[in-house]
């Protein structure tokens, strides 16, 4: 070896040892103590349970997750995306349309050819739900969101959001990746790529999908596309260990044996790294094992609700069967935000039997939306309320959206078909002014009319709140600097506070 590296014994230390690495990464002796076989319990006790709370993590500049500065001062540093899978009807929830009452059961005319997903276009149909105005802002909310209606002044509604496809999967992809075609990185991937993470002990981008099953298109919704695989979303599992392969199977080994293996591995890897002075990828890989070890302690801690008070649990609806599942997801989201996770997506609705398990109300708006709104209304309200009282809402952008809205005309008299032409989304927190009602759709809610907000605009706006310029957040791939917003995207000025585009 010496013949190859005569300088490895010279004055300049080039060998990045594990010790050096930890020192360099700012971990100091604490990190070393951790590595030197403190038991996991001791670790948590020693650091008073704060070890997992978003402290700066080691990983070095080589790590794809190293924190990166935003392009400009950010208002938000984390995002919680609440995705209503199946297609939330804007005209039965947040858009009150008297014209639908007036023209109930009459043909829709003067809007060109109506293309529906299933069957023939039916006549117009009024909402089965009662609407009222709430708050200072006077936002209209239907009776199926009784909790959310109490906090409308914290929310910025966009009533003129629109997509391009009436296909569930393509629209899922559009809202989650900016393109109806597969292969594009998801919003969460872009954001973790752009900002890294402040807590390397947990995944930076976490997805919690509906316990009933995955959404349309499955993992394509949280894929990293052409960005490095490190930026894909990590699914937190609803049962067992939250992260895949977090713990060894007791069939083969034990944690104690694993800990001994880790230490031996570090020694063997150091022996090897000594032959490759300055090979930073080798030291990064040595560090990755230490990070994995920390994640083994921190991921279960993050999903353990034991320390939450009964009052908090009730706030999220954990005490009621209908709201328990999504309530738990919302509470987990808050815990993850507290721990520095950058992007969290919660999905309500599954593809399994979509008329029932998702918001896909072809059969009946009344029964479908009543059920699904009940499932999420209290949990979402609880989440925003809880974030606010803990001082986290200012820095956490909550986004509520779906893949498309629904048709003002009926399907078989009681249901509604897909309508990408208009939908309502809302944002809250993360510097978004509350009490806004932005844009409108036409009198019946078929198409976005005033200030249409296509998907790229919504994405540009979310990035902006995080201090990222959607035109500068690029990744070179196959001859092009790619963007989440492709060649489009305008900020929504009421939200960003930027001058309105002429």
């Amino acid at each position, binding site marked *: 070896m010496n013949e*190859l590296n005569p300088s490895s014994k010279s004055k300049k230390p080039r060998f990045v040892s594990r010790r050096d690495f930890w020192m360099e990464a700012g971990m100091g002796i604490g990190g070393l103590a951790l590595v030197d076989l403190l038991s996991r319990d001791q670790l948590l006790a020693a650091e008073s349970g704060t070890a997992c709370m978003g402290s700066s993590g080691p990983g070095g500049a080589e790590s794809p997750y190293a924190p990166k500065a935003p392009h400009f001062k950010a208002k938000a540093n984390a995002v919680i995306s609440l995705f209503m899978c199946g297609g939330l009807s804007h005209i039965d929830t947040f858009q009150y349309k008297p014209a639908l009452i007036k023209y109930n059961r009459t043909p829709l005319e003067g809007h060109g050819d109506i293309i529906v997903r299933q069957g023939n276009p039916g*006549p117009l149909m009024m909402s089965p739900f009662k609407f009222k105005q709430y708050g200072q802002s006077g936002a209209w909310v239907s009776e199926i969101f009784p909790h959310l209606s109490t906090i409308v002044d914290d929310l910025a509604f966009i009533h003129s959001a629109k997509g391009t496809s009436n296909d569930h*999967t393509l629209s899922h992809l559009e809202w989650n990746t900016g393109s109806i075609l597969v292969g594009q990185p998801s919003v969460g991937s872009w954001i973790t790529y752009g900002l890294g993470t402040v807590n*390397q002990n947990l995944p930076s981008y976490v997805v919690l999908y509906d316990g009933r099953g995955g959404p349309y298109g499955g*993992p394509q919704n949280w894929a990293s596309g052409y960005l490095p695989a490190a930026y894909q979303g990590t699914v937190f599992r609803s049962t067992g260990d939250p*992260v895949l392969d977090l713990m060894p199977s007791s069939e083969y*080994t034990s944690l104690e044996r694993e800990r001994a293996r880790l230490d031996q591995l570090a020694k*063997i890897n150091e022996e090897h*790294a000594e032959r490759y002075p300055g090979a930073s990828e080798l030291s990064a890989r040595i560090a990755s094992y230490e990070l994995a070890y920390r994640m083994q302690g921190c991921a279960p801690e993050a999903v353990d609700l034991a320390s939450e008070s009964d009052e908090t649990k009730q706030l999220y609806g954990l005490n009621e069967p209908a709201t328990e599942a999504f309530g738990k997801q919302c509470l987990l989201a808050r815990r993850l935000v507290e721990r520095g996770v950058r992007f969290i997506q919660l999905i309500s609705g599954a593809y399994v039997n979509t008329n029932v398990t998702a918001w896909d109300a072809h059969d009946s708006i009344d029964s479908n939306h009543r059920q699904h709104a009940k499932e999420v209304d209290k949990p979402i309200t609880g989440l925003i309320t809880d974030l606010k009282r803990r001082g986290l809402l200012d820095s956490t952008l909550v986004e509520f959206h779906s893949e498309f809205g629904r048709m003002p005309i009926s399907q*078989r008299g009681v249901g509604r078909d897909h309508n990408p032409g208009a939908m309502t989304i809302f944002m809250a927190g993360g510097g978004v002014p509350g009490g806004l009602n932005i844009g409108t759709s036409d009198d019946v809610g078929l198409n976005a009319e005033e200030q249409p907000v296509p998907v790229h605009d919504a994405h540009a706006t979310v990035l902006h709140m995080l201090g990222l310029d959607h035109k500068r957040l690029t990744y070179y791939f196959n001859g092009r600097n790619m963007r989440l917003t492709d060649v489009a995207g305008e900020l929504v000025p009421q939200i960003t506070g930027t001058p309105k585009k002429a």
Partner: protein
Amino acid sequence: MKRFGILRRRAVGFLFVTVGILALTSYSSLVAQKAPATEKDVLQIVERCYQCHGEAQSGGLDLRTRAGMLNGGNSGPAIVPGHADQSLLIKRVSGEVTPRMPLGPGNPLTADEVAVLKDWIDHGAAGFSGAAAPTTSDLRGSGPQPAVVIPGYRERVINDKDRQWWAFRPPVRNAAPKVADARWTRNPIDAFIKSGLESKGLEPAPQADKRTLIRRLYLDLTGLLPPPEAVEAFVNDASPNAYEKLVDKLLASPNYGERWGRFWLDVVRYADSSGFEYDRNITDAWRYRDYVIKAFNEDKPFDKFIVEQIAGDELDSPTNDSLTATTYYRVGPRIRFREKQNPSNRYDYMDDMIRTTFQGFMGLSVNCARCHDHKFDPITRMDYYRSMAMFWGYVDYDTPLAPKADVERSEQIKVEVDRETAPLRAEIARIEQPYRDRDNKVRVEAALAKYPEDIRVAVRTPSEKRTPGQKLLVAQLQLNIDDPDVIIPVPVVPADDPNGTRRRRAMVKIDAADDAKRQALFRKIVQIEKKLPPPLPKANAVRDGDFWLAPDDLGDEQRAGNGRFSYDKTCCFVPKPGEHYEVPELRFAANGADFEADKKNVEVKPGFLTVLLNGKLPPASHVPNRPDYPTSGRRRALGEWIATAENPLTSRVIVNRIWGWHFGTGIVSTPNSFGKMGTAPTNPELLDWLATEMVRQGWSVKAMQRLILNSETYKMASSFYRDTNTEKDPKNVYLWKFPLHRVEGEIVRDIMLSASGQLNPQFGGKPFFPSIPASVRDAQPRGEWQLTKEEPATWRRGVYAYVQRGLRYPMFEVFDQPDLNVSCEARNVSTVPTQALTLLNNSFMLMQSKFLAERVWKEAGPDANEQIKRLYRITLSREPTRVELSLNEAFIQKQRLYALSRGNPSQDAAALAALMDLAQVLLDSNEFIYIG
């Protein structure tokens, strides 16, 4: 072209008329220069302005037409015909008025260029009428592709400067440079590399030791570990050509194709499923995967490999292999659901083919010119559509891979069976009909009961008295058969669906006697159908046809109101032998979103990238010499044009890929991008030499690899370090040592199996499903993925694992398996904690560690010292150092005592548990998964 000719003559005439009144100096300067400026001359200059003053009309100025110039922009007219001195355009480009145009540093027009503009304006600024000019004529004749001017689009004129881009010039074969050191003179590659190192003052690494070399070669060429015995044999082989023999042996190994084919599969975005909602299985994609592996193993000349993939069906004598090669078209992402409602999909698939083909074979992002002329490279939007026209005829078509006689016999039997069973089926239908009718009625009544009153009223209102709204309501209720609650019932198990997967609950019961009759008929049908031959193997191939007329597929049912488009033509999906075949027409700028708008555009004829033609024009079709196979021959012409030695890109692109697959980074580090957005070659002379050598060697991939592998460059040590080198070239761009690099996810898994001795060597065939937890499967509601156990059937090489676009195998995904929806030029290599978790805890890993421990025990006996040595020989192909030996002995001892302290295992069981711990440590180690 003709038009420009006329302009030129007119301008010349004008010159002679006016010459008399010009001052003598002007006269002499004009004569001394050349003929006056033509529209073409001017366009070559002015088009540089179009990025801002074309479609974008920056400052309100559009310089694409004379009218636009006269109208001018915010600062007034750009030109005053006859008066260059008064024209703002001239003032701006000459710097007389600021800001000087074009904006940006280092970009002013030359004095000559300004003179051309002045001359043209002084002579009346003729041309630039913007009127329809020659559109793409039929390009089968000779002559260059003229730039197209049509309303709304003026094609960027490709000029000599564009053609001067390094990658568009033919590769130049320079002699290998002279280097002093004899070690670097035997192989031209070495001379190029060493010369580069010398000029940069970099000291090359010495040769790696033999154990390192054999491990490097095995991992690199086969993706497997060298068996310990092979390592010893190589170390002890003192013959001068021991290394060369090893290279040849490994290139001849079938495992070579299993590793090298995988690289190509990344380039062509290979997957076994189509992605999107249904994530449907591409049933015979694996045959293409095997074709690729075989092509590498057989060293199929790369030019042939290209043509087969693009047009394997259009050859004069297609083979099963060449037909299978066209699955290239089928393995991209496809929606495959309600395609007939969404004609724009076809254009997206075309984009996928253009993207993959030009990036994959030629390193060009032609796809960037889909909506406008390419922003950086001289590729026009019309070029994009010309290229699309080359593909436009293809349709998905499953081709039997069997002798014609077998196919015909099989078809004949099917026809016979159908003929025999048809009356029986009709009889069944007749028996069932009254029940179906009654069932339907009951069902509708039941459904109606669930509806609100106003709907029931609408249904019960006589049709002539219904309001328009009621009519719509009623129409809906009757037509909704998508809904499982209001379904046309199938109250029986159809004969072709014996498992009853389509069966739905009937609301009425069939009479026992009728049912008996029916069942008897079913049994007869089943009996007759036993004659059916087993399905013939088939390729998911393509051929020319009319894609609008493809057979209905999932979701394509003709149904009122479902938005399905109708087309004028009804015949034929694919032409019959002897029929005349025309590729359906393709319109410029068409995207399928609006049929009527698409039709208003000009028709596009097939063609090639203008920048590479330079006046010459290859044929736009090469029809095979097979009258029984009507096809356009366009794809063959395209493939042959890509694969010709005259194409300056193709040979460079593939040798660069080969280089990058060996060294981790290409000479051009952006292998899919040889345009302006790519990176420059680090050693252009070497790249060109390799490109010409590849053609000279008959496009043999293995010949190029033999050259590379036998070079001193390849044999350098990776663990070499010099302060001075690191300072000058920290990233080892100029290759002063062999670059240490990690193997890919598939290979990580392969070498685990290779070490544990559990690798199932089954070569080729249908893909296997690696074992995943049910919770991973749950995330993806659709797709073919089957849950399996960890067992030998799933311990095949990673290249054979099913690739489902919507559900990735976590172990590959975490180790940077690319997205595979678009061509992957080079895999990312990230280092993340989830990789560590996988290697620490995944059941596969734990299981293989146990197998490895058992293998070592069996091969080395119970002595810990011997076990450690054996473990190192198997996993790292070397002996442990003294330090490692003692470190690991202590570890084994500790783990053994730990095991003994738990439960009450035998001494042997405790020792085996300790050995398993060490085995896993080595499988997790950096050295194990890096090529050193």
